[in-house]
Structure formats: structure tokens, C-alpha cells
């Protein structure tokens, strides 16, 4: 068993998927010789060749649009969009074509396409490199939207996503690419793709998070112990479809919930979760479901991002508020 970073775990997962199925092709900008700007695809082109690890022209709609054609031909494309803010030229192909092809064909066509997007802030980048657009995809019927919080999940979730016959947008927490964990490849994944994971059991309130906020929330839960608070932490893993059963069970137990994400506050994933929990667990709640999130601004210049992003203090403040009712 070795320690592996989240970025290398995705690389290893891609490699396994490509070895298992010759129809898996990886495509995107700079993913070949360079191995991607985050080196997530490093070495794959050398081992699988240029026909399976396709360095594309610099045009996002073209990446997704040609992936649709490859999928129609029986391939399983894994597309890399270089950064979150660059996905929008491809948005039409993703939401009108990739997402709807199975529906439009009345089930005759499948679109096993994975769209990998390094996302989120905290790396000191310039504009368009730090955004969290997951809601814009989660709102689209036909798409599934996932994110991993640690290297072990990263390794398995990328493989599960590639095996899925539904199209999946895989948001990779770029500031966690270098986080390390022990990975035992011989131990099968503990959960199916769309099930949330209870990372820490608690009794006083539930922290609901995914992607880069998983680590932040675990740290907050540790810190809260000093205040005598026992927090449950759930990694949602899938944003669409949310694993409502796991969320409801936790909230019925703790009676309080705080949703944490980097995406803006209004109309974000937290809004949906808060609404669903209110509908389903109304009589169990001691407080409204609160949200600790980014703000309703464009992602700010990087010297201000520490103030924009939810951090340990803001999460604990959210916990204080939810306990105060």
C-alpha cells in the first residue's frame, strides 16, 4: 500500500479504465505530451498512443461535440476541460447534446461520456480559473454531476464514472490535487457512485459538503470538539442526484444541518438541499438548514479569495448559528 496524491489517483484510475476497455479514449487540450496542466494525464499518451489520448485543437465545443460522435461510434470518451471557467463554449454541446441524446433517441442511444473539470478556488489563479459552476450542470436533466473529496474516492469514482452509461460531469477539486492518502487498489470501492459517505459520525449537527470542502469540514468538526460539539460530516460525492436517504437519516438524527460549498450562495446546491430537507424532515428540525458558501459575486481576484472561500472559521460560525436556534 502506498501513499498517493489525488491527482495521481485519477491518473491511475484512468489508466486502469483504459487498460480494461480499449474503447476508452481520453481527449482534451495539452493532455498528451504535457500530461495536462495539472499533469493528471501524465504518461498516458506514451503508453496508449495518440489515437487514445487525443491532444485536441483549442476549442471546447469541439472537444465535447466530437466526443459525442465518438460515443455514437461506440467509444467512451473522457474529456478534459482545462479549467472550470473555460467550459462554457462547450455548454451547448453538454446540455443540449450530451445530456439529451438518450432522451431524444427514446433510449436507443447512450452517451457514456465523462467530462472532467478541475474546479474551485484556493490556488491563487487569475480570473476564470477558480470557479464552481456545478449547479449549472446539476440543473440539467440527463446529466449526473459528481466530485471527489479524497484520493481513494478519486481513484474509484473516475473508474465508476467511465463505466457509467449515463454522461457524467466530474468536478475535480484542483486545490486538493496534491493531498495524499493511502490507496489499496485491491480493496474494492466501499460505495456505489451516487451514494453519500458519512465520514464522521456525530450527534449535534450535520455538515454536508463535497469536493474541496470535505477537508475543510473535517477540520472544522475536529475543531468543534474543543467547543464540546460533536458534528457529523457527510461527503455527498454526487451533487446530482443527491443521495437524499443518507442526508435525511443524518438530519433526523442530529436535527440540524449546515451545507458548505464554494459555489455562490443563491440557487446553489445548498439551496436545493435545504429545500429538500425542509420538505422531508420538517418535524425533526430544530433550526433552519443553513448555508456556508461563496458569495453572490464573480470569483474575486486571488488576493481576496481567502475571504470569499468558506474556511474553518466560517464553517464553525455556521455551526454556532445553527446551534443557536
Amino acid at each position, binding site marked *: 500500500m502506498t501513499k498517493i496524491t489525488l491527482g495521481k489517483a485519477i491518473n491511475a484510475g484512468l489508466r486502469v479504465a483504459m487498460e480494461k476497455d480499449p474503447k476508452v479514449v481520453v481527449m482534451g487540450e495539452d493532455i498528451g505530451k504535457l500530461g495536462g496542466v495539472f499533469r493528471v494525464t501524465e504518461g498516458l499518451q506514451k503508453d496508449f498512443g495518440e489515437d487514445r489520448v487525443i491532444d485536441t*485543437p483549442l476549442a471546447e465545443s469541439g472537444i465535447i461535440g466530437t466526443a459525442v460522435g465518438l460515443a455514437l461510434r461506440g467509444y467512451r470518451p473522457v474529456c478534459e476541460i482545462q479549467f472550470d471557467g473555460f467550459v462554457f463554449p462547450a455548454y451547448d454541446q453538454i446540455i443540449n447534446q450530451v445530456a439529451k441524446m438518450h432522451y431524444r433517441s427514446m433510449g*436507443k442511444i447512450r452517451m457514456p461520456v465523462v467530462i472532467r473539470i478541475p474546479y474551485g478556488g484556493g490556488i491563487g489563479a487569475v480570473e476564470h480559473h477558480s470557479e464552481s459552476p456545478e449547479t449549472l450542470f446539476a440543473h440539467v436533466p*440527463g446529466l449526473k454531476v459528481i466530485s471527489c473529496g479524497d484520493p481513494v474516492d478519486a481513484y474509484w469514482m473516475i473508474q465508476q464514472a467511465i463505466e457509467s452509461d449515463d454522461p457524467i460531469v466530474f468536478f475535480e477539486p484542483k486545490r486538493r490535487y496534491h493531498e495524499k492518502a493511502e490507496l489499496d487498489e485491491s480493496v474494492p470501492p466501499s460505495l456505489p457512485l451516487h451514494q453519500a459517505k458519512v465520514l464522521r459520525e456525530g450527534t449535534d449537527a450535520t455538515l454536508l459538503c463535497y469536493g474541496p470542502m470535505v477537508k475543510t469540514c473535517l477540520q472544522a468538526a475536529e475543531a468543534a470538539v474543543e467547543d464540546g460539539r460533536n458534528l457529523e460530516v457527510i461527503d455527498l460525492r454526487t451533487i446530482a*442526484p443527491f443521495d437524499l436517504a443518507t442526508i435525511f437519516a443524518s438530519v433526523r438524527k442530529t436535527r440540524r444541518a449546515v451545507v458548505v460549498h464554494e459555489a455562490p450562495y443563491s440557487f446553489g446546491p445548498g439551496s436545493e438541499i435545504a429545500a429538500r430537507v425542509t420538505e422531508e424532515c420538517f418535524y425533526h428540525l430544530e433550526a433552519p438548514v443553513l448555508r456556508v458558501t461563496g458569495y453572490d459575486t464573480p470569483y474575486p481576484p486571488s488576493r481576496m479569495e481567502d475571504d470569499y472561500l468558506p474556511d474553518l472559521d466560517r464553517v464553525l460560525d455556521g455551526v454556532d448559528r445553527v446551534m443557536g436556534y
Partner: protein
Amino acid sequence: MSESVPGPAPEVFAPHKAPVSPPQASEEVEFVQLLTPEGERVEHPDFTFDLDDEAVKGFYRDMVLVRRIDSEATALQRQGELGLWASLLGQEAAQIGSGRALNKRDMVFPTYREHGVAWCQGVNPLNLLGLFRGVDQGAWDPKDNNFHLYTIVIGAQTLHATGYAMGQQRDHAIGDADNGEATIAYFGDGASSQGDVNEAFIWASVFNAPVVFFCQNNQWAISEPIDRQTRIPLYQRAAGFGFPGVRVDGNDVLATYAVTQQALRRAREGSGPTLIEAYTYRMGAHTTSDDPTKYRLSEDLEHWKLKDPIARVHAYLTRHAGLDHDYFDEVDAEADKVAAELRAGCLALPEPELTDFFQHVYVEETPQLAEQREQFAVYAASFSADSEGEG
């Protein structure tokens, strides 16, 4: 400094009224033509029509039938049986000529107007109506006839075609001009302005994908004329992307056949993409929702009627193949029969089931959607329970 810039200053803003190109309808256009509007065969140095008169008879029949299917569908829309129809009137030669050049294994990516190509591929015309009647989204399986779903988003399918062609490449299905595979993407002059079409050109070029881009330049993108899309003839754009472009008389079924056949052979043998601009004219409206008298001159229409794709084949077959009225009457009678069947079939298309719209959103349905479907079913059933109670 100015000495290094010879000639007049570049025109920064050219008035819309003074297009460099393309020519107006009244001007002569340079293109590949093998059959004149008068029905006379002509030679071209690069393209030959190598089939016999039996094949020309077949093309005539195809064109008459698809025109009749089209006029029946237009009538059905006017009678409220279809929500919308996109007519192919005037574009029969472009579609039948290119469609008949396809081999069984070639793959077609249409827009929403390629009823004639669908016909060539063996798609039941009734299946095209379901989409426009609103009972389904296209009831044919693209794999059955190598004819993909209609694509409404303008130009999106050119990228799908290019990706599919890249798949053919990876499957080693090319390398033989007769037995290899190619892909053909249909789009219009309006689509040539879309980013996706230009990206498809780039992809096809740099990967040398076996794809033929077949642009039916019918002069109008709804109400926007061709000079709102381009300042140069569309086929010339191909040169900038690094592959050949050909302009063909889109109302000449012999020429569209010959040009498409050569482009497909080129793709199948592994020589890469071709852009074909079929220069034609949309005789009707963009769809049944617009009124072309608001945006174009009736003289233009009259001018193009003289170039009718069917009339010139009729003239050729009469003068040079010795066909008499009997043959043409036979084809007309067959067209009426096809139209009657289409009408009866359209009226008999089954209404969708109440919960059908929940189906096929996902391969593996989400719990949320399953829950919504159940809730809707219960809600819908409550009405029939109510009415039973009242009865």
C-alpha cells in the same frame, strides 16, 4: 512606415449593400453542372456522371416522391396535424444526388430538413412526422439506416459527424474508396456562421477525418440572406482550413451525385474531408411558421422556378431517354399513393402514454426522478378516480 503597406488602406467597414460575393440570384454562378436547366447534358473537366439513364429515372422518381411527401406534410401542418414542418421544396436534387452517392456503411448526420436523404437511407417518412407532430422526438433508430437523429441546434451535428468519422478512423474502417466508410454532415448556409461548424472544419482537417461537409446553400437563414453570413463563396472557406471545397449546382441531381461520390470516395480512401457547397434555393418558407413574402422578392422565386431540379430531369428523360407520359404518370400515381399512406399513417400515430416524458432521461434512473414519476402517476390517476366517482 507606410511604405511597407502597399495599396489602399484596408476597408474597415464595408457597407452591407456591397457584397464582394456571392453573386445575386440573377448573376451567373460558377459551379459544377452536368445537366442544364433546359435538360441538356454538359461536360465538366473534373466530374463525370457515370451512371446510365435507368439511374436517372430512379433519381427522377426519388425527387418526385420526396417533393410529394414534403407537400403532404406541409398540408398536414396547415390542417393542424403537425405542429411544424421544415420544407425541402427546391432542394430535392441536392438531397437525392448526395443521398444516392452514399454507400450502405456511410453515416449521415442531418439537420431537420433532410427528408430526401432520409428517403435515400430507407427511413420511413412517417417516422419523420412524429417529431413534427409532437408524439416523439424521432422514432427511427440511427443504427438501422445509418441516419442520425434530426438536429435542431444549428451546426451542432457537424461536430458529431467529425467525431464519428474519427471513430471510423480508429476502427480502421477507411483506406478503400469503394468498401471503406465515410461520414457526411448536412448543414445550411446559416450554419456556416456557427462556431461549431468552423470547429468541425478544424478538427476534420487536423485529424484528416473521413467526413464530407455538405452545405446546402439555399440562400436564406430564415429571413437573413446569404450576404449576412459570408463575404466570400462558402466553398472557398475550405481552403483556409486546409481541404478542398467544391461548389456544385445544387439543383442538378447528376452533378450533386458526381461531386458527392468523389468526395465520399476521397474520404473512404483516407484522403480526408471535403466541403461541398450545393448552390440551391429554398422555394418555400424556412418552416411553416415564417412568411417569406416579408423578406424576399417574388422575382427571385420566379427566377429559381426556371431552375427547378425536377423539371430539368423531366426534360432530359423526355428528349434523350425517350420516355413518354406513361412513365411520368406512373411516378405521379405512386407519389399520390405514398402521400395518402403518409397522411393515413400520420393520423394514426399513437398518442404518447401519460408518463412517457419521464422515460429515458437516464440509463440508470435517479431516485429523484423515479419519485417524481410516481407522484405524477398518482396525481394523474386522481382525475380518473374523480370522474369515476362523479359518474
